[in-house]
C-alpha cells in the first residue's frame, strides 16, 4: 500500500530509543542485554522501514518487537530475579525525587521479580500508559488474560512492596535505636 510518510531512521532512533531501552531493561533487568536488544530491534526496524506507514505505526511496531525480543532473550538467557535486582540497583537514570522515596526506588526492582507475563502487562500499563486492549494487541494475548495479569501483578507487587516497606521501617528504627 502506498503511503506518503517517509521514515527517517535516525530520527526514529532518537525519538524511541528511551522507550525501547526501558522496556528491554525492565523486562530483562540486564543493562548490557537491554542495549543489545534495543540495537537488534532498531536494526530490524531498519530492514522493515519500507513497510512502516506512519509515526504511530512505528511506535506500535517498536513496542511489540521490543517486548517480543525481550521475551526471546529471557527464554534464552533464563535470567533470574535476583540477578535483575543487582543489575537495576544502581539507579541509572532515576530522578533525585525517586531516590528519596524508599518504595518508589524499589518498585522498579520488585517489578523484575514478578513472573514475566505479569511484568510485561504492568510495564506496558504503567510505563507506556497503554489500555488493556492495547496491551492485548501488543502482546498478542487475549484481553481477559491481560486484565487478569494486571490484577495479579498489581496485587503481587503491592504485597512485595508492603513487605519491603515493613523491613525498611524496621531497619530504620533499629538504626535509630528504637
Amino acid at each position, binding site marked *: 500500500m502506498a503511503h506518503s510518510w517517509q521514515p527517517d*531512521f*535516525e530520527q526514529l*532512533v*532518537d525519538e524511541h*530509543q*528511551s*522507550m*525501547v*531501552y*526501558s522496556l528491554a*531493561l*525492565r523486562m530483562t533487568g540486564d*543493562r548490557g542485554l537491554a*542495549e543489545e536488544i*534495543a*540495537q537488534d530491534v*532498531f*536494526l530490524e526496524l*531498519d530492514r522493515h522501514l519500507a513497510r512502516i506507514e506512519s509515526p504511530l505505526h512505528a511506535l506500535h511496531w517498536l513496542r511489540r518487537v521490543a517486548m517480543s525480543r525481550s521475551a526471546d532473550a529471557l527464554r534464552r538467557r533464563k535470567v533470574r530475579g535476583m540477578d535483575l535486582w543487582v543489575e537495576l540497583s544502581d539507579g*541509572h*537514570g*532515576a*530522578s533525585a525525587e*525517586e531516590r528519596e*522515596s524508599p*518504595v*518508589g*526506588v524499589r*518498585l*522498579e526492582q520488585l*517489578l523484575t521479580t514478578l513472573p514475566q507475563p505479569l511484568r510485561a502487562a*504492568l*510495564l506496558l500499563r*504503567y*510505563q507506556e*500508559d497503554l489500555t488493556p486492549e492495547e496491551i492485548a494487541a501488543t502482546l498478542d494475548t487475549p484481553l481477559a488474560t491481560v486484565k487478569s495479569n494486571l490484577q495479579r501483578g*498489581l*496485587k503481587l*507487587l*503491592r504485597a512485595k*512492596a508492603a513487605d519491603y516497606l515493613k523491613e525498611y521501617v524496621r531497619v530504620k528504627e533499629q538504626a535509630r535505636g528504637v
Partner: protein
Amino acid sequence: MDEIERNQFERELTHSLERRPAPPSLARNLMERRSRQRAEHLHFRRVLWQRLAAGMVLASLLGGGFAWHHREQQRKGEAARQQVLTALRITSHALNQMKTQLAEHDRDQQE
C-alpha cells in the same frame, strides 16, 4: 485494598516506571552496527554478482567450446564424405575406362 490506597500505589508505580534515558553508547553502537551490516551486505552482493558473472563466463566458454567442437566434427564428417565421394568418382571413372578398353579389346579379337 481500598480505592484511594490503590490509586496512590498506581501513581507511585507510574512514577517509578518513567522511561529511562538510553545510554549514549546505544545510538552510537547501533549506527556502527548498521554501517557494518550495510557494508557486509554490499560486499556480499558484490561477491554474489562476481560469482554470477564468473559462472556466466564459464558457462559461455563451455557452451562455445561445445558448439565449436560440434561444428568441427560436422566439418570433418563433411570433408570425409566429400573424400569418399571423390574416391568413388575416381573409381567409377577408372572402371568405366577399363570397361571401354575391355570392350575395344573384345571387338579387336572378334575382328
